[in-house]
C-alpha cells in the first residue's frame, strides 16, 4: 500500500529554507523569485490502516504549533512547483529514521519490501519562465547524479493526485553470478580490465597471469572447485593494487634529472626515503611517538593515561561531482580512521581544507559544478557531517584558484583520543588471530561506491562512472561510534579497522594478514537490496561500516552491546592461519587467493622526473615601481579572496561540542579574525591541551615545489607555536594533492616536470621534518587532480590543479591557561617582529595582485628558525606576550593589520626597525612573505625579559599598540607609508563574503 504524507510550515511562519533558496537564485543566476515555500514529502510503502496513518501523521510528523499536513496534495499558491527526490539506491537517512520512528510508535516491524522515501516539493512564486525554473531545479536544488526532479506549471499540475507516489526503489532483478575471467594473454586481461573498469595497471597483468597459471596454484584451486580467476578475485587484487590503497606512485622509482645542471638521482620510493625513514629517525628521539606508519592513523602520547590519534585525507573526486554528498562522505569517512586505529579511539576534532575555483568564475570553461555551487555544497556537507557526529570542527582553510576548476580539493583531518591501556593491553596494539570472528558493524551493503577507489585513481572525464558518489550518514555512524567505544572499554575488540576505499576487500584483506588467512561467507553480509553480484558485495564502499575481530567467547556480549546501541552487527566469517583468503557464497568458493600474492614482486611504477629550474622556465622578478598609495593597496589586498574574511564557514561549524574549546577558530574583540591555531582540552579533567593548525600554499609551486613544501610546513609549525604549542612535541600530517605525473606525449606532455615537482616536494618534506624534528604521524596522497573541461567550441581542455601539500601540525600544550591568541590586547603594549624579512615576494599575494609570479619564493633556513621557535616557546610559557601571530600570506602589512583589526586597536609601526627591512624597499618590507616570522605584542613591563629571551636573534621592537584606532606605518621619522582607520580596514577585509551566512 502506498500513502503520501505532505508536511509544510503554517502560512504565517517564515520559511527560512525557501528564503535561502531565493537568495541563492539571485546570487547564482540573477533570478528574482518572489517566494519559495517547501513541502516535505514522505512516500510510505507500508500497510497501515487509516487510524494508524492518522496517528503517524499527528504524533510523529506534524508539529501542531508550526506545521500542517495531509495525505492529499498540499500545494496551493504557486506559479511553479518543483519536486525533487533521490534516485534509486541513494542513501535516504530521513527515510530510515522515519521507519525507525514508525516502528517504535506502532510497535511494528517493516517488511523487507516496505520502506519510506523522502522528497521535497517547492512552491515557487514569481515571474519566471519554464527554463528558469528548470535551472533552479537542476543547478541549485538537485544534482542529477543523485536526484531526480520534475517541474509542474499551474496548467500541468493535477491537484487531485499531485506528484503521484514516487518510490525510488532499487529493483535489480538479477541473480548473483560469479564470472570466470579469461587470461589467455596479457592483452586479453588488459582488455577485460578496461571493460570492467578494473583499472589493473598494465605492468601488474603479467604477474597476475603468472600466478593463476602456476601448476601448484592450479592444483590447490582445483581442490576448491576453481580454475580460471574469478571476477571476485581480480576485483580483490585490483583494489589491493590500486594507487589509493597501495600508494604505487609514492613507492615508485623516480629517475630525477635537473636539466640545468645535469644532476641526476634515482629515488627508489619517495615514501621510504622521504616519509618513513625520517619519521623513524625522529621517533628515536621522541618517546611520545607511540605508533606510526602501519595503522589507519598515527598515535602520539597525550599524557601517561591517554594517546591521541591523528590522520587526514582528501575526498576530491566525489566532491567534484556531488559536492554535498562527496564532502559529507569525506568527513564522516575520515572519522572512521581514528575509530579504527589501535583498538579504537573517540573522535575529538575535525578540520577541513577546500581549494576551489573563484566563487565568481565567469570563464568560458564549464566545470561540472560551478565553483560557487560546489563550494556551498562542500561547506554544507562537512557542516552536517561534523555537527551531526558531535565532533567539533574548530579549524580549516579555504582558498580559491582557477586551477582547481578541473578538480576541487577537499581535505578532511580527524583527531581521536583513547586510553593508553585497555585492561592489560596497550590500546594502540591489535591483531587478528586464528579463530577470531569477522564481524561487520554499521551500515548495510549496496551498490554504492563500487569502483570508487579506482575512480579516484584516474583523471576525471565524462566517462567516469558516477555510481561512486554517496551521501554519508553521520547518524548511523555516531551510534556505531558510541557502541564500539563501549565494546572497546570492555575489552571485546581484538582488531578493528574501517571499511573505506575497497570495502570489505581492503578491510578484511589487510586484517587477515595478521592471522595469515581468513574465510568469509559473502552471503551472510547484510544487503540493502537483493541482486548484488559476489564481487560487488566484496568491493562495495557502502559507508558507515567497520570490520571488527572478536574472539568467540566475547561474541554474545559484543552482540548485546550492539543491540543496545541499535547498531547492526553480523558475523560474516573468521580469521585463520591457512595462508589463503577464501570467500564462499552459499557454500561455494568464489575466491581462493594466497595471502602472500600481494607481497610478491609486482613491478614498481617508474617515472621520469625532469626538473627545469624557474629561471629556465622564464620566471623573473617583475618590474614594479614603488606604489605611491600603500593605504589603498593594503585595503585592496585585504579584500582579495585569499586574504579576506571567510568567516561564514567557521560560524556554521560547531566548534564547542565536547566542552573543551580553548582557542576558537575566530578570535579577537569582535570574535571575527581567524586564529593561528585551534586549541582543545580533550580530557576535561586535565589542563593539558592539543593545538592544531594547517597550512596550504600551492602558489609557491609555480616557482619551486621544494620552497612550497618548506614554507607550508614552516607556516603550520609557526601557527601552532603561536598559540603556545611545544616545539619539542609537534606531530605532522602530510596530505599531497598532485596532478598526474606519468608522462604521456599527448595526454600529459609535462608529466616529467610534474614528477620532478613531486620529488622536490618530498625532499623538502624530508629535510624540514628532520630539521624541526616533526614525525609524520600520518599522511596520504591524492594524485590526478586534473579535469578535462568542456569549452565553448565542443572541445575539452585539460586543467591541472597547482600541486598542493596540506600540512597539519599538532602540538601539545602543557597548560592551556598559558595559551595566547593573535589579537592585540591593550593600547601601550609594544609590537615586536621576530625573524628577518627578506626579498621573498615570489608566488606571493602582492605579486599575484600585480599580475606576476616572480622568482624569489620564501626560503626556510631551518637551524636559525629552530632556535627562535624554542625561544618563543619560553617567552609564551613565561606569560610575557599578550598576543602572538605567525606572519603568512600577504606579509607584514596584512598581518600587522590583522593583529590590530582583531584587537580593534590602533597600531604604529616603523618599517626601519623591522629586522632585515633596511635593505629592502618599502613594498618589499610590507609584502614579502618570508618564513620564520612572528608578530607579538608585549606589555611594557615585560620588555626587558622579553628582549633578553631573544638576544642575538633577528627580532625587534617596531612600534606599539595605540588607542584611537589608527593603523599607521611609517618609515623612520620622515615618511608615513600607511595611515588608515582600523575599523575601515576591517570592513574592507570583511566585505567580500559578508552576505554569506
Amino acid at each position, binding site marked *: 500500500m502506498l500513502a503520501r504524507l505532505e508536511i509544510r510550515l503554517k502560512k504565517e511562519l517564515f520559511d527560512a529554507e525557501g528564503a535561502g533558496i531565493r537568495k541563492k537564485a539571485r546570487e547564482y543566476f540573477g533570478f528574482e523569485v518572489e517566494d519559495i515555500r517547501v513541502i516535505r514529502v514522505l512516500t510510505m510503502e507500508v500497510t497501515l490502516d487509516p487510524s494508524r496513518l492518522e496517528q503517524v501523521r499527528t504524533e510523529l510528523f506534524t508539529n*501542531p*504549533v508550526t506545521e500542517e499536513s495531509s495525505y492529499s496534495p498540499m500545494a496551493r499558491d504557486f506559479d511553479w512547483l518543483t519536486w525533487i527526490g533521490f534516485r534509486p539506491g541513494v542513501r535516504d537517512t530521513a527515510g530510515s529514521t522515519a521507519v525507525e520512528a514508525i516502528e517504535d510508535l506502532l510497535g511494528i516491524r517493516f517488511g523487507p519490501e516496505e520502506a519510506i522515501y523522502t522528497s521535497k516539493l517547492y512552491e515557487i512564486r514569481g515571474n519566471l519562465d519554464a527554463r528558469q525554473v528548470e535551472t533552479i531545479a537542476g543547478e541549485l536544488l538537485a544534482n542529477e547524479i543523485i536526484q531526480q526532479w520534475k517541474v509542474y506549471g499551474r496548467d500541468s499540475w493535477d491537484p487531485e493526485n499531485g506528484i503521484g507516489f514516487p518510490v525510488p526503489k532499487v529493483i535489480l532483478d538479477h541473480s548473483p553470478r560469479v564470472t570466470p575471467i579469461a587470461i589467455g594473454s596479457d592483452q586479453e586481461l588488459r582488455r577485460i580490465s578496461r571493460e570492467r573498469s578494473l583499472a589493473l595497471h598494465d605492468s601488474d597483468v603479467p604477474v597476475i597471469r603468472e600466478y593463476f597459471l602456476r601448476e601448484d596454484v592450479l592444483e590447490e584451486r582445483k581442490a576448491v572447485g576453481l580454475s580460471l580467476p574469478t571476477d571476485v578475485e581480480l576485483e580483490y587484487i585490483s583494489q589491493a593494487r590500486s594507487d589509493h590503497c597501495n600508494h604505487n606512485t609514492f613507492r615508485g622509482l623516480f629517475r630525477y634529472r635537473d636539466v640545468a645542471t645535469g644532476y641526476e638521482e634515482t629515488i627508489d620510493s619517495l615514501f621510504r626515503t622521504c616519509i618513513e625513514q625520517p619519521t623513524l629517525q625522529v621517533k628515536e628521539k621522541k618517546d611520545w611517538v607511540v605508533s606510526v606508519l602501519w595503522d589507519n592513523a598515527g598515535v602520539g602520547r597525550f599524557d601517561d593515561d591517554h594517546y591521541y590519534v591523528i590522520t587526514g585525507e582528501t575526498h576530491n573526486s566525489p566532491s567534484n561531482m556531488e559536492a554535498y554528498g562527496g564532502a559529507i562522505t569525506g568527513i564522516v569517512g575520515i572519522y572512521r580512521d581514528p575509530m579504527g586505529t589501535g583498538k579504537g579511539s573517540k573522535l575529538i576534532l575535525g578540520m577541513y581544507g577546500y581549494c576551489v575555483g573563484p566563487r565568481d568564475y565567469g570563464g568560458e570553461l564549464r566545470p561540472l559544478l560551478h565553483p560557487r555551487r560546489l563550494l556551498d555544497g562542500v561547506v554544507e556537507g562537512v557542516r552536517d557531517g561534523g*555537527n*551531526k557526529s558531535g565532533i567539533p570542527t574548530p579549524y580549516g582553510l579555504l582558498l580559491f584558484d582557477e586551477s582547481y576548476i578541473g578538480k576541487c580539493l577537499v581535505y578532511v583531518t580527524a583527531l581521536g583520543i583513547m586510553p593508553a591501556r585497555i585492561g592489560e593491553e596497550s590500546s594502540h596494539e591489535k591483531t587478528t588471530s586464528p579463530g577470531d570472528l569477522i564481524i561487520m558493524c554499521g551500515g548495510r551493503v549496496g551498490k554504492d561506491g563500487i569502483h570508487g577507489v579506482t575512480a579516484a585513481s584516474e583523471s576525471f572525464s565524462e566517462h567516469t562512472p558516477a555510481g561512486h558518489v554517496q551521501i554519508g550518514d553521520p547518524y548511523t555512524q555516531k*551510534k556505531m561510534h558510541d557502541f564500539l567505544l563501549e565494546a572497546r572499554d570492555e575489552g571485546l575488540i581484538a582488531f578493528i579497522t574501517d571499511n573505506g576505499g575497497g570495502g570489505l576487500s581492503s578491510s578484511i584483506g589487510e586484517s587477515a594478514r595478521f592471522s595469515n588467512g581468513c574465510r568469509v561467507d559473502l552471503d551472510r553480509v547484510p544487503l540493502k537490496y537483493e541482486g548484488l553480484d559476489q564481487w560487488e558485495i566484496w568491493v562495495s564502499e557502502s559507508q558507515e561500516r567497520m570490520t571488527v575481530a572478536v574472539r568467540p567467547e566475547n561474541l554474545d556480549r559484543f552482540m548485546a552491546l550492539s543491540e543496545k546501541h541499535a547498531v547492526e552487527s553480523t558475523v560474516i566469517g573468521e580469521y585463520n592461519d591457512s595462508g589463503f583468503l577464501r570467500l564462499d557464497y552459499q557454500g561455494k568458493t568464489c575466491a581462493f587467493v594466497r595471502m602472500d600474492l600481494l607481497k610478491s614482486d609486482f613491478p614498481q611504477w617508474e617515472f621520469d622526473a625532469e626538473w627545469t629550474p624557474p629561471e629556465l622556465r622564464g620566471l623573473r622578478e617583475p618590474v614594479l615601481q614603488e606604489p605611491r598609495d600603500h593605504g589603498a593597496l593594503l585595503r585592496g589586498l585585504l579584500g582579495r579572496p585569499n586574504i579576506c574574511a571567510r568567516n561564514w564557514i567557521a560560524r556554521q561549524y560547531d566548534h*564547542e561540542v565536547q566542552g573543551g574549546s580553548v582557542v576558537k577558530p575566530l578570535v579577537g574583540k569582535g570574535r571575527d579574525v581567524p586564529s593561528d591555531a585551534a586549541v582543545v582540552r580533550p580530557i576535561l579533567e586535565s589542563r593539558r591541551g592539543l593545538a592544531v593548525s594547517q597550512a596550504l600554499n600551492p602558489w609557491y609551486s609555480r616557482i619551486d615545489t621544494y620552497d612550497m613544501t618548506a614554507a607550508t610546513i614552516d607556516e603550520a609549525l609557526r601557527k601552532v607555536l603561536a598559540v603556545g604549542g611545544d616545539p619539542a612535541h609537534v606531530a605532522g600530517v602530510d596530505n599531497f594533492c598532485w596532478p598526474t605525473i606519468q608522462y604521456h606525449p599527448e595526454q600529459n606532455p609535462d608529466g616529467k616536470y610534474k614528477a620532478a615537482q613531486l620529488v622536490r616536494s618530498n625532499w623538502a618534506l624530508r629535510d624540514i621534518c628532520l630539521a624541526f624534528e616533526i614525525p609524520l604521524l600520518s599522511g596520504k596522497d591524492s594524485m590526478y587532480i586534473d579535469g578535462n573541461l568542456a569549452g565553448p567550441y565542443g572541445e575539452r581542455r585539460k586543467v591541472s590543479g597547482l600541486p598542493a601539500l596540506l600540512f597539519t601540525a599538532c602540538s601539545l600544550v602543557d597548560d592551556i*591557561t598559558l595559551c595566547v591568541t593573535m589579537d592585540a590586547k591593550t593600547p601601550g603594549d609594544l609590537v615586536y617582529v621576530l625573524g628577518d624579512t627578506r626579498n621573498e615576494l615570489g608566488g606571493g599575494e602582492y605579486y599575484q595582485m600585480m599580475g606576476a609570479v616572480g622568482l624569489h619564493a620564501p626560503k626556510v633556513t631551518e637551524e636559525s628558525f629552530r632556535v627562535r621557535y624554542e625561544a618563543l616557546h619560553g617567552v609564551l610559557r613565561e606569560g610575557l606576550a599578550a598576543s602572538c601571530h605567525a606572519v603568512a600570506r600577504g606579509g607584514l602589512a596584512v598581518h600587522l593589520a590583522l593583529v590590530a583589526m582583531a584587537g580593534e586597536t590602533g597600531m604604529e609601526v616603523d618599517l626601519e626597525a623591522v629586522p632585515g627591512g633596511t635593505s629592502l624597499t618599502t613594498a618589499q618590507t610590507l609584502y614579502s612573505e618570508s618564513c620564520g616570522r612572528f608578530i607579538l605584542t608585549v606589555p611594557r613591563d615585560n620588555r626587558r625579559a622579553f628582549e633578553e629571551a631573544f638576544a642575538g636573534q633577528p627580532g625587534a621592537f617596531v612600534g606599539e599598540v595605540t588607542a584611537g584606532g589608527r593603523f599607521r606605518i611609517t618609515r623612520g621619522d620622515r615618511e608615513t607609508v600607511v595611515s588608515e582607520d582600523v575599523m575601515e580596514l576591517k570592513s574592507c577585509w570583511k566585505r567580500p563574503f559578508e552576505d554569506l551566512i
Partner: protein
Amino acid sequence: MTHVKALVLTGYGLNCDYETDYSLKLAGAQSHRVHINELIGASRTGSGPALGDFHILVFGGGFSWADDHGAGVVMAAKIRRHLGEEIQRFIEEGRLIIGICNGFQCLVNLGLLPGFDQEYDKRRVALTYNDKGNFIDTWVNLRVEPDSPCVFTRGIETIELPVRHGEGKFYALAPDIARLTENRQIVMRYADREGNPARGRWPLNPNGSLEDIAGICDSTGRVFGLMPHPEAFNHWTNHPDWTRLKAVRNPAGKGFDPHQKGDGIRIFENAVRYVTATFS
C-alpha cells in the same frame, strides 16, 4: 547529606553527554551517562538504572535520530511511549529535568514544556528553523528573569553561553507567549553585552526567537529547557574572550586561578543545591 544523582541520556545521535556529565560532577552531583535503551529496558524488566534512583534527568544536546523530522521529534515520541508515565511521576515527586538544545527541543515536543498548570502532554510551543536558515555557533548574552520560579537560574542575573543549533527559533501563538510572560516562565532571553534585550537583532538573537526567548521553565520551575549550552562553559578558558580578559586584567598573566569553573556550572550547582535542600 543526600548524594545528588544525575542521569544524562545518551544514544541515537545525542552527543553532549560527556561534558554534561563532567559539568554535573563539577557541580557536586554523582552523574551517570545512561543509554536511552538501557533506561527503557530497565523500565520494562525492572533491572538496571531506574529513573526513580535519580534526582536530576538531563536531556542533553545532539542530533537525536539525526533531527530529520524536526529536532527532538522522534526522540520525544520514543520517550513518551516508553517512559512517559515514569517521567510524569518523576516530576510529581519534585525531581528536576533540564533539556539543553536538542533536549529542549525534545521537552517541548513531549509537552513537558511549557507545562501550563502542570499539564505535561500538550505541544504548545515550538523550536523551529533559525530565521537565517542555517546552523550557527556563537556565544550569546543572556538575561535571566529574576522572578522566574526556575530553580536552575537562582541568583543569576546575566550569563554568557554558546548556542549551536539550526532549529532554535522559539515560536508560540500570542496567547501562549502572554501566558508564559505572565507566569514568569520565560527564564532566559537573548540580550546585548550590557544585558539589554536583543529585540530580535541578529546575531545577538541568533535565531529569530519571539520575544528573544532562549529558555523557559514549567510552572513549577523544576523543568527547564534552554537552547544555549551551559555544559560548554565548564572552565573559564571556554569563554571566547578569556585570553583578552586575562591580558587586560592582569598584564603579567599571573594571579588567575587556573582551576576556575566556567559560569555554566552555576546552573548545575543550582540544581544540586535544590536537590540537596529538598531531598535531605
